[in-house]
């Protein structure tokens, strides 16, 4: 009986293919929009999470100033850090894997006739540990070079490509601000971040060399810290904050003049942003399903009127109220369900294209697909109920007389 009713519904829909198609367009578009956005959103989240993973997801950054949280953008005058601060962190905070104080500046790097504008970072050997960065060739600074402030450097892949092309860079020299640096290592390529910055466009030099020969001061701008695996970064963050307040002699009631950025915090911000977005999309979907549902109700009422004689005939033949009810309910559910399925296919196709264009992975979300199917079928039931009841309540004699 159900099967017959289902086939009957399919046939009725197919007979008015154009009308049915236009009717479910609202549902198709609504569902497609949600599927596309959720799939792309999932892909973007996956990409950002992966990027942050590359950056080191248990990494924390300590910077002077007030970060994003400063009141009304009024910046408290913030002293830079010193090497001693980094040493204190390494000494006094447990469960740290590595600490890397850094100072950086944008400069020209010159090799023969080639030159390139890049970021030069003065740091220690901890940098590659914190950033979880492998070396493609050569090595990182040894303690002697760090202590002695030697003119050696490690270059990023982009710089290597620009200056050396296919040639061997290790042992060659490059000039930074008229000082010659000997290349001792090449970093492995990391690629672009999701915000489009090239992570490989850099030159690393020992911090002391940078301070003495390039910057001419003893400032440390950013201190990178990485926690050991499995250690909660928020606890490390709290301890870092306490230590820095102490070292920088901040009065108990005063605000911090530095901030610690926790990568995991960024990940969770991302996740909650995605959740807000998903909620908004849900609201949009609800509205479009509502509009689509009203369209279905309208067309089902038309259909009941058109088929009044058929309903009368069926009743005369022995159809009970519930048989007629079922016929029209199934028809509207099938109609709405087909709309939902078309919407899902359209949405997935659009997401596939969009993911390729945006360069994010295609993340199939079975949950949202199931939800779309359930909701569109639900719309069919809710909005098909009234027309179906109208059909079932028809008086057989009146229905048979209907022109």
């Amino acid at each position, binding site marked *: 009986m159900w099967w017959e009713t289902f086939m009957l519904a399919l046939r009725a829909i197919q007979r008015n293919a154009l009308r049915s198609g236009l009717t479910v367009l609202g549902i198709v578009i609504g569902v497609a929009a949600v599927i596309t956005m959720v799939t792309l959103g999932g892909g973007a989240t996956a990409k950002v999470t992966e990027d942050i993973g590359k950056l080191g997801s248990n990494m924390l950054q300590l910077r002077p100033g007030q970060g994003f949280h400063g009141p009304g953008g009024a910046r408290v005058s913030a002293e830079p850090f010193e090497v001693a601060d980094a040493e204190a962190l390494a000494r006094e905070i447990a469960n740290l894997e590595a600490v890397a104080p850094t100072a950086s500046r944008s400069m020209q790097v010159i090799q023969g006739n080639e030159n390139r504008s890049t970021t030069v970072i003065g740091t220690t050997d901890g940098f590659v540990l914190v950033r979880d960065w492998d070396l493609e060739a050569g090595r990182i600074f040894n303690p002697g070079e760090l202590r002695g402030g030697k003119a050696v450097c490690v270059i990023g892949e982009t710089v290597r490509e620009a200056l050396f092309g296919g040639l061997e860079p290790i042992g060659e020299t490059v000039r930074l601000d008229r000082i010659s640096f000997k290349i001792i290592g090449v970093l492995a390529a990391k690629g672009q971040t999701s915000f489009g910055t090239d992570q490989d466009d850099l030159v690393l030099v020992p911090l002391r060399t940078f301070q003495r020969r390039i910057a001419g001061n003893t400032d440390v701008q950013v201190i990178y810290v990485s926690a050991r695996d499995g250690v909660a970064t928020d606890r490390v963050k709290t301890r870092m904050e306490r230590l820095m307040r102490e070292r920088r002699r901040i009065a108990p009631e005063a605000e911090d003049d530095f901030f610690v950025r926790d990568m995991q915090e960024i990940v969770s911000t991302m996740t909650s942003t995605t959740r807000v977005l998903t909620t908004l999309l849900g609201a949009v979907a609800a509205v479009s399903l509502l509009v689509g549902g009203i369209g279905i109700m309208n067309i089902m009422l038309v259909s009941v009127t058109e088929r009044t004689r058929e309903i009368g005939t069926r009743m005369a*033949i022995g159809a*009970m109220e519930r048989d007629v009810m079922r016929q029209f309910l199934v028809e509207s559910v099938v109609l709405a369900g087909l709309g939902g399925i078309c919407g899902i296919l359209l949405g997935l196709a659009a997401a596939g294209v969009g993911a390729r264009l945006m360069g994010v992975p295609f993340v199939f979300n079975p949950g949202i697909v199931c939800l779309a199917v359930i909701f569109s079928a639900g719309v069919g039931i809710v909005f098909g109920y009234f027309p179906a009841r109208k059909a079932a309540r028809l008086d*057989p004699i009146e229905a*048979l007389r209907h022109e």
Partner: protein
Amino acid sequence: MNPAPARDSEPQPLIRLTGVSKIYGTGQAAMHALRGVDLAVAKGEFVAVMGPSGSGKSTCMNIIGCLDTPTRGSYRFNGIEVGDLSRDQRAILRRHCLGFVFQGFNLLNRTSALENVELPLIYRGVPLRQRRRQAATALAAVGLAGWEHHTPGELSGGQQQRVAIARAIVTTPEVLLADEPTGNLDSERSLEVMRLLTDFNQREGLTIVMVTHEPDMAAFASRQIHFKDGAIEAIRTA
């Protein structure tokens, strides 16, 4: 010519209407479509209902067919008081005991003859294979073997009416109700249909109640009931 049916010789007729009245509307606008109709139809009878337009023939047929209930009086089908049944119970009664043939055929458009005939079997819950077979047999019985897959639009009026008859008899009902089954047909097709009905009546013992305006068609019946102004004016036995 006896207006009162012989009740004693038939202890329980299949159809018995006693003092049936049907009033449409109320008060000033009240329309007395039937005024105290007494009628008994025995199993196996072929009854023709005649009378001028508006005399209440269709109203009476609708009541007999359990599509409608009397305003006053009693209608017993096979001893069951139909007026006491719910809408759904009457639907069940129609499903299992009654077959309808309408003047306007009332076949489903764009649906093959076979599927039209299958329709009442679907509501009876007959499985597909058996349904197909029974429907094909019924179509063959009305002389439409080979036309199973034609839709009503591809059939002549006479053929459409025969499909409608096949649909009415496919469930082997106890009573076949036909409201002007030949009203839309020329005399040639009408005779075809009448021969078919007589055949079912005589061979299968199918009880038939048929409304007609044409005396030629009524002549096929064993009894003619004449209506006038919502009441039975005369009964003629052939």
